[in-house]
C-alpha cells in the first residue's frame, strides 16, 4: 500500500498535534500516546481498527513513560505515528512494528531536544515585552514563535518519513528476508517487559508486589482480560486501604 501525499500530510499533522499546545492540556495524555496516535493514523489510512491494534501494541513499551523536568526517554508519539504508518503500509505484524518503533522513538528525542533548546530564545522575547508592561505581548510570545518552530521541526520530518518510509522498509525487509522479520517479532514480544518494569518502579510501594503476582495469575490461569482484572484490582485496592487504616492487618506487618 502506498501512502498518498494527502495521507502523509495528515500523519504529519497528527504528530504535530500530539506535541502541540492546542488540545487544552490533554494532548500530552491523548494524541501523544501511541494508542491514540495509532488509531488516528489508522483512520487516515482507512483502517482505524488495525491502527488501534498496532498503536496499542507499540504503546506497551511506553507504559512506564514519565517525562519529568523535561527529560524524555524516547518519543512515544513519533513511535506511535510512524510505527503505525509503516506497519499498515508495509503489512507488518504489530510485534514487528513495535520492534521498528523503538529506534524511531529514540530518534524522536532529537526533535524534543531541538525544541527545548530553541524555545529558550523566545522567553527572552517575552522578557522584552514584560519590560514594557505589555501583557498581550508576553502572552503571544509564549505561544506563537514556539508553536511555529515546533510545527516546522515536527511536521516536516514526519510528513517525509510517512511518504518515503514504507517503501524503504518494504525493500529492506524483502532484502533481509523472513529470518529478520522473525527476529523483529521476538524482540517486539520482549520489549513490553521494559515498559512494564519502568511502570513498576513508579508505582511499587513496599509490600504491593504481591498484587503484581495476583494480576499475573488472574491473567495466565483464569485468562481474564484487562478490564476484568481491573474489577478485581479495584476490590483489592479497597480492601488494602481498609486494612491499612488500622484494621486487622496492622498487627504484625509493616
Amino acid at each position, binding site marked *: 500500500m502506498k501512502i498518498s501525499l494527502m495521507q502523509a500530510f495528515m500523519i504529519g499533522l497528527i504528530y504535530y498535534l500530539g506535541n502541540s499546545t492546542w488540545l*487544552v492540556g490533554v494532548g500530552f495524555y491523548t494524541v501523544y500516546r501511541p494508542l491514540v496516535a495509532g488509531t488516528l493514523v489508522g483512520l487516515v489510512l482507512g483502517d482505524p481498527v488495525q491502527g488501534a491494534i498496532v498503536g496499542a501494541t507499540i504503546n506497551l513499551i511506553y507504559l512506564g513513560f514519565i517525562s519529568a523536568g523535561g527529560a524524555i526517554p*524516547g518519543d512515544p508519539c513519533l513511535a506511535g505515528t510512524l510505527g503505525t504508518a509503516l506497519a499498515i503500509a508495509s503489512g507488518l505484524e504489530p510485534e514487528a512494528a513495535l520492534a521498528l518503533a523503538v529506534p524511531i522513538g529514540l530518534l524522536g528525542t532529537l526533535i524534543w531536544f531541538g525544541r527545548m533548546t530553541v524555545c529558550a530564545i523566545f522567553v527572552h522575547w517575552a522578557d522584552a515585552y514584560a519590560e514594557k508592561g505589555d501583557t498581550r505581548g508576553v502572552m503571544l510570545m509564549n505561544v506563537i514563535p514556539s508553536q511555529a518552530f515546533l510545527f516546522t521541526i515536527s511536521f516536516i520530518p514526519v510528513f517525509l518519513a510517512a511518504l518515503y518510509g514504507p517503501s524503504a522498509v518494504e525493500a529492506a525487509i524483502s532484502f533481509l528476508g523472513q529470518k529478520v522479520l522473525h527476529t523483529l517479532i521476538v524482540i517486539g514480544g520482549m520489549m513490553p517487559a521494559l515498559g512494564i518494569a519502568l511502570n513498576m518502579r513508579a508505582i511499587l510501594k513496599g509490600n*504491593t508486589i504481591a498484587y503484581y503476582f*495476583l494480576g499475573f495469575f488472574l*491473567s495466565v490461569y483464569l485468562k481474564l482480560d484487562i478490564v476484568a482484572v481491573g474489577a478485581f484490582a479495584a476490590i483489592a485496592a479497597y480492601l488494602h486501604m481498609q486494612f491499612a487504616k488500622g484494621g486487622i492487618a496492622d498487627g504484625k506487618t509493616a
Partner: protein
Amino acid sequence: MEKRHKKLRKWDIIKSFFLWLTFSHACYNYERLQASAFAHAMAPIIKKLYDTKEEIAQGLKRHLVFFNTEPNVGAIIHGIVIAMEEERANGAPITDEAINSVKTGLMGPMAGIGDTITQGTITPILLAFGIGLAVEGNLIGPILYVILIAAAIIGIAYFMWMQGYRLGRKAVEQLLESNMFNNIITAAGVLGCTVIGALTGKFVNLSTKLTLSVGEAQINVQADIFDKIMPKLLPLLLTLGVFWLVKKGKNPITIMLYIVAFGVIGSVIGVF
C-alpha cells in the same frame, strides 16, 4: 493613601486556569522551563489587579522566572499565587520574595506528587484498559481512554487550582495533612500493580524452540517443561529480570539494547 478594593471575579480565575491548562508546555525550554507559561496565565490577572505600567511590568517580570512543576496537581501553586497577588494589590505587605518563595518552595514537592499521580499511576492504568480492548480490535479502547484521561486530568487540575485560590497558603498544609495524596497513591498503586501483572501475562511474549533428546524421546522444552510449570513463565522471569535491572539504576536505553541483543542472539542460534 486610600486604595481601591480589588476583587477578582470567578471568571478571571477560570480564564487564567484555562490559559495555564492549554499553554503550560507551549514554550517548554531548558533555560526556564514553564516560566513563560506561568507569566502567560498570570498576565490577565496582573492587568486586572494593577494600574500603573510599572506595577504591571514588575508583575510580569515576577512570573517570568524559572518555574517547573507537574502542571495539573501543581496547579494548586497558581491558585495560591493568584490569591497572594490579589491581597498584594489590596495593599497587603506581600513582597516579590514572598511570592517567589511560595512558587519555588512548592514546585518541587508538587512535581514529585503530581508526576506519581498523573503520569505514574492514572495514565498507565487507563492506558492498560484501553490497550487491552484495542488489541482485540475494539475501538472502544482508544475512545474510552481519551474520555476518561481527559476528564481525570482536567478535573484534577481544576480542583487543585480552585483549592489553591480558596485556601491560599493553608491549602497545601491542609491537603498534606488530610493524607489525601498518600491514600490516592497507595490505592492507585495496588490497582496499578495488579493491572500491570495482568499485562505481563497477556502482552510479554517469549518462548523457546529448544528440544532435548533423551534417549529415543524428543522433549519440547516450551510445551513439555515450561508450560507444565506455569504458562508464561519465561515472560514473567524476563519482566522481573528487567525490573531488577531498572531498580539497579540501569538506563532504559541500555536495557533496550540488551533486549535487542538477547533477541538477535537467541534467534540466530535458534533458541527463540
